[in-house]
């Protein structure tokens, strides 16, 4: 695969064969060799074959091999002649991250971290086969699919004030429950308020370093302040929507005569019935995930109260921001000097809108949209903000995480004969998981260093570091 250096932090795969536009990968020289060895650059080039793609098929520095689209992929399509692809969103529709801040300090929490993590593990269902306390009928579930986090607030999970600080205010419109399958409803109905397994987690941490004083002040973040990160998505509901529409799109590709280099890129014109139906169903999953994180956050609050024997006011948990990293959205961006309405696919990539954007909370318009980048269990995570560079170059997008460096199988081998939980405990990080295998598969060294990913984004000018967070404890599936 030919990779031409554009700047020190940007590489281009020139347009060739059936590619309609070039592909561009954001990475440092040091990272690009590892990226080259993966199949991901080929996938970034494959996305450039899709009809109606605008400017570039983009990949963020945490790019790695996905299905059809690479993880870390961003692609925008013209609404007139462009396509929508479930593979460009991923199976876990609206997988995302919520960051909450508290009034507590690290010094207060550290001695009680075990009780706190155990209490979180008790209140928040994790792992395979876990079922929340919420068992919805299909009719009730459909309300969740239309209202998202608003449904959760109406039912006593959190407050109205939380919604202001969620991307899309926690609820996307034009969700269409009539195009959702029975199977998707069945998979979702016992899973609202569950974390799931794999790389999803709920972490208690603290602000370890401030990189941008002013932005940190606006976000209300101070050194040693205790924070909570929730990383999860739309659970079985979203997985099933993706699965259902891959079948629909496989047929659509033949119907509309779209030629593809990879079956998993299957898609349909945005304006076609198939395209519109997928969008309607995908938005239901987006709302499911917003509601899911809102419910989990509320239960996390209960766990804090129980473990610390403190009032909600003393604990002071509030939403700093919540981002989505697997989604397709209609957004307006400037393309060659003109404002264009586009369908932006982000798969393992985060929206990172610049200061003054009307789509971000009024309180943050001076600094840009907060972006939350979780790292592995043992090291650190980052809070960034969006920049004008992202608006200009990446349709207002940046990275979403560290990305795996080892397969799960390799990680288990590396963990053999060790107790990862005790190793982490020695570093002051207390972990609870439903399955020991999950901890082994998620060992810190199985992931790339998220700092290098975040630094690459900052150097490329597509986002800016605000604070670094370090973990104190975490629950996993």
């Amino acid at each position, binding site marked *: 695969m030919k990779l031409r250096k554009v700047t020190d932090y940007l590489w281009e795969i020139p347009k060739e064969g059936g590619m309609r536009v070039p592909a561009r990968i954001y990475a440092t020289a040091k990272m690009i060799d590892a990226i080259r060895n993966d199949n991901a650059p080929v996938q970034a080039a494959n996305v450039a074959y899709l009809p109606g793609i605008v400017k570039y098929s983009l990949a963020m520095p945490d790019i790695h091999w996905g299905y059809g689209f690479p993880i870390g992929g961003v692609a925008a399509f013209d609404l007139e002649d462009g396509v929508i692809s479930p593979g460009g969103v991923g199976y876990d529709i609206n997988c995302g991250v919520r960051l909450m801040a508290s009034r507590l300090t690290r010094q207060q929490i550290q001695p009680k971290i075990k009780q706190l993590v155990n209490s979180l593990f008790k209140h928040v269902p994790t792992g395979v*086969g876990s079922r929340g306390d919420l068992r919805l009928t299909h009719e009730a579930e459909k309300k969740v699919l239309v209202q998202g986090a608003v449904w959760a607030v109406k039912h006593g999970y959190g407050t109205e004030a939380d919604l202001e600080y969620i991307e899309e205010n926690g609820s996307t419109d034009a969700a269409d429950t009539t195009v959702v399958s029975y199977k998707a409803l069945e998979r979702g109905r016992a899973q609202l308020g569950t974390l799931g397994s794999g790389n999803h987690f709920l972490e208690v941490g603290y602000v370890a370093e401030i990189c941008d004083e002013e932005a940190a002040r606006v976000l209300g973040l101070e050194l040693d302040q205790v924070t909570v990160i929730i990383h999860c998505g739309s659970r079985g509901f979203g997985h099933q929507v993706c*699965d259902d529409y891959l079948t629909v799109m496989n*047929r659509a590709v033949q119907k509309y005569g779209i030629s593809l280099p990879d079956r998993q890129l299957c898609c349909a014109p945005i304006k076609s019935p198939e395209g519109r139906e997928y969008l309607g169903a995908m938005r239901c999953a987006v709302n499911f995930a917003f509601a899911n994180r809102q419910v989990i956050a509320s239960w996390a609050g209960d766990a804090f109260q129980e473990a610390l024997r403190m009032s909600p006011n003393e604990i002071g948990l509030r939403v700093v921001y919540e981002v989505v990293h697997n989604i397709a959205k209609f957004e307006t961006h400037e393309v060659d000097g003109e404002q264009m309405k586009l369908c932006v696919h982000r798969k393992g990539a985060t929206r990172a809108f610049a200061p003054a954007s009307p789509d971000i909370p009024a309180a943050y318009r001076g600094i840009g949209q907060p972006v939350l980048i979780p790292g592995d269990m043992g090291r650190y995570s980052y809070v960034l903000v969006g920049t004008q560079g992202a608006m200009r170059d990446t349709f207002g997008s940046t990275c979403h995480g560290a990305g*795996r460096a080892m397969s799960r*199988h390799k990680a288990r081998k590396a963990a053999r004969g060790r107790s990862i939980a005790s190793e982490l405990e020695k570093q002051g990080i207390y972990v609870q998981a439903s399955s020991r295998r999950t901890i082994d598969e998620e060992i810190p060294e199985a992931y790339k260093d998220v700092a290098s990913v975040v630094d690459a984004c900052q150097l490329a000018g597509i986002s800016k570091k605000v604070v670094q967070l370090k973990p104190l404890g975490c629950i996993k599936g």
Partner: protein
Amino acid sequence: MQKRASRYVPVEHTADAGIKIFAPDLKGVFESAAQGLFDLIANLDRVTPTSRRQIEIEATDREALLVTWLSELNYLFLTERVIFKKFQITTLDECALSALVAGEPLDLEKHEIYTEVKAVTYHGLYVKEADDGCEAQVIFDL
């Protein structure tokens, strides 16, 4: 010559997991693939197949049939909470199959669950004739 038994081997993949299946015939591929899926989900040594059921599947071609078969089993596990361990394909053609499967209702006290399979993907998917039978590959999104 005696036919080899069906078997599968893991396919290394950074973010997810896959299996490659070798079997004397197509039925063997489908049975062994199901085994591979549930070995990934749970420790099957702790599962006593007590409950049986019949499954009928249709798809547009045999590759889609393999994905649909495994997706159906995963769906039944996730919604009806049964861990399947025994798989017997009773009839099979390019676009349809029927099977008898057996498993045990999920008991979180007794069973050891490893991971959740989000989906059975079309990525890198193939089913083909090999020198001494059939071979297939399927990748799971975890």
